[in-house]
């Protein structure tokens, strides 16, 4: 008995799912007529698709530039340091 009810409900659900008037292929199918709305969605989708790449790319570029600048500054400081240390500590010079 339970199996019959279950099968009946599944059948009814399947019929509802396959009703062509209810289910659309996508949320904006009504705009696919080549009109201005179609164009508007295209531009908006393009913009929103490019946005995350632009944002993440900008952050990555900023981090990269800051790292390069910091590394160059550090290398400049380190290049100066050994001369001073050797002059101050003759032991480190190996003599």
């Amino acid at each position: 008995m339970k199996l019959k009810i279950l099968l009946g409900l599944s059948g009814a659900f399947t019929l509802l799912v396959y009703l062509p008037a209810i289910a659309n292929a996508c949320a904006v199918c009504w705009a696919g007529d080549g009109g201005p709305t179609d164009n508007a969605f295209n531009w908006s989708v393009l913009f929103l698709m490019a946005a995350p790449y632009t944002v993440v790319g900008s952050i990555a570029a900023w981090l990269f530039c800051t790292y390069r600048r910091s590394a160059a500054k550090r290398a400049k400081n380190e290049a100066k340091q050994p001369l001073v240390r050797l002059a101050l500590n003759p032991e480190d010079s190996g003599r």
Partner: protein
Amino acid sequence: MDESLTAIEPKQRSFGGGEPPAPPVQPTPPIGSNAWLAVLIFLGAEAMFFAGLIGAYIVFRVGSPIWPPPFQPRLPIATTGVNTLILIASAVTVRLALKAVIAGNRKKLILMLGVTAMLGSIFLAVQGLEWIRLIHFGLTVSSSVYGGLFYMLIGFHGLHVLGALIWLLIVFWLAKQGRFSKERHVGLQTCSMYWTFVVGLWPLLYGLVYLL
């Protein structure tokens, strides 16, 4: 026997009889502070938030054959253009404030922060006055999609400028207390980043909403 060994040791070292002690390992300093990184990520999230709003605007703007819709007031392009220049000038002054703190010039730091806050306040005041005029002309949030989009985009930007201005005033007060130095100025640096973001966003919104 022990005494003889200690006597030989310095001689051996001078002839290469042992490696000199390794120099102390210097930790690599981070490229930025944690607060700096947090604000950078926050700005990324803010950019995505505005990208969503701009995306919605594009749908309505490009989808409408006539824009602005008929019987709707026109936006004040010239006044807002001048206001845009004022806001861009504030980005320059906040940058000068950051340079002043790095140079250790406290007087210039306070002056530049004050000028930035003043320019930001002028921008907000002019925007507010223009909004009042537009509301009197009949452009409200509920008057049309045009009005709704205008107040949503420009309004959110205005709110961000207000938030940045409050942050800037706190930084200004801290600078007057002498809380920033050449070595420690993360608060000012992060505030400058946020201010530059809201300023940099404005010309894009101005071009999109007022000029296109």
